[in-house]
């Protein structure tokens, strides 16, 4: 009976997560506070002026939006191959956070686009590919909701996630085939001035830490929620 109960292992997870969460929360708050303070107090970009401050939200969330999908793909593969019960919970819990970062990227980019390009939206390759990423996130969330049984939903979502991840580099590199207005990558190649790069990297760490905090919190809720659901179903059967 004990090995029947897949929650046995997640029970241990709950204890660990509970212990770690407060510290993670504090770390996130510290990184974000310092990063935003340093970013906003740094001198304005010579050509773009104040709107360029949007960068401190835009760039880290753009990077997180893609990184999280990568993490979900890894978790999906783990869930499919090793059938680790926490892997699909992690993927599911990541999706909403990733979609949030993607939406933030789209919004902040639009707001930034108005002063720099004179329009909120253009059908440019980078922008379009980020929009498609958003749709892939939503499709992933949708399939979790469409299939009632969480075990089947998990595997269906994992298949979709892996299929979608094959698509991602294609969308991403289409920048090179389609003309684009958008900034090329430069941040991580050391072409950015350190007065901007340091706060940016700090914020990136802060966003990442925020992701991990939210992830653990959401996974906890999911584990508990499933337990409650199972108890309710058991009662319905009795």
């Amino acid at each position: 009976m004990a090995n029947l109960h897949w929650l046995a292992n997640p029970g241990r997870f709950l204890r660990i997560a509970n212990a770690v969460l407060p510290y993670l929360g504090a770390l996130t708050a510290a990184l974000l506070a310092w990063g935003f303070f340093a970013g906003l107090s740094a001198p304005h970009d010579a050509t773009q002026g104040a709107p360029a401050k949007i960068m401190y939200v835009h760039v880290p969330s753009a990077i997180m939006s893609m990184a999280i999908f990568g993490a979900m793909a890894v978790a999906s593969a783990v869930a499919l191959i090793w059938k680790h019960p926490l892997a699909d919970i992690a993927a599911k819990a990541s999706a909403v956070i990733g979609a949030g970062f993607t939406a933030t990227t789209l919004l902040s980019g639009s707001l930034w686009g108005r002063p720099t390009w004179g329009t909120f939206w253009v059908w440019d390759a980078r922008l379009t590919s980020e929009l498609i990423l958003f749709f892939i996130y939503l499709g992933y969330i949708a399939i979790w909701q469409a299939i009632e049984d969480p075990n089947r939903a998990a595997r269906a979502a994992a298949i979709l996630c892996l299929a979608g991840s094959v698509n991602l580099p294609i969308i991403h590199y289409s920048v090179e085939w389609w003309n684009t207005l958008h900034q090329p990558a430069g941040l991580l190649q050391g072409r950015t001035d350190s007065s901007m790069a340091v706060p940016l990297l700090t914020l990136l760490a802060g966003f990442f830490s925020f992701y991990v905090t939210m992830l653990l919190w959401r996974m906890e809720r999911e584990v508990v929620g499933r337990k409650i659901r199972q108890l309710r179903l058991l009662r319905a059967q009795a």
Partner: protein
Amino acid sequence: MSPFLAVIARDVRLALRQGGGSYWTLLFFVLTVTLFPLGVGPDLALLARIGPGVLWVVALLAAMLSLDRMFQADYEDGSLELLALAPLPLELTVLAKAAAHWLTTGLPVTLLAPALGFLLAVDVTAYPILIAAMLLGTPVLSLVGSIGAALTVGVRRGGVLLSLLVIPLYVPALIFGALAVEATLDGLSPRPHLLLLGADLLVALALTPWAAAAALRLNLE
């Protein structure tokens, strides 16, 4: 007849018999394309410019519209269980069904494309590339669509969900397909786009049968 061919033949025959499934698709294709001159106005230069893109978008929608035919009926009448137990590996069954889907949607749409391109005043010089691109791209639509169809097979009438899952996966084929034709019209070489389309097709051929078969298995539980 080999089991693989038998499955293709059965699905094609079903598509042709049942309520004219594939005629619906073709009619839809023609109707939607002819709607553009009505909606956009008779400006031929404008139509010529949007023509290749419109043909691609509508071909994509036509393929998507008929996707739920691929597994849903077999799931609901119990045939899918028997197909899953047949000696033909489920991956090959998926491939056969995707082939049947392409034969009844992608292929006719490709053959019809020049006629509709004519309606939209697309330059005749682009037709060979249009057809080549469609021959490479429309199988991708059927193959990639099979994943979406397999994932949503237990969800009754999951049409909207299906399109939500499948459209993002269709984007590369759509972009390269449309770009190939545009490049030709602009006097550039369509070769890189066609090569990318071909690569897309190879990846789809190699991966989608596995993904779709896995999705089907989980829906047979």
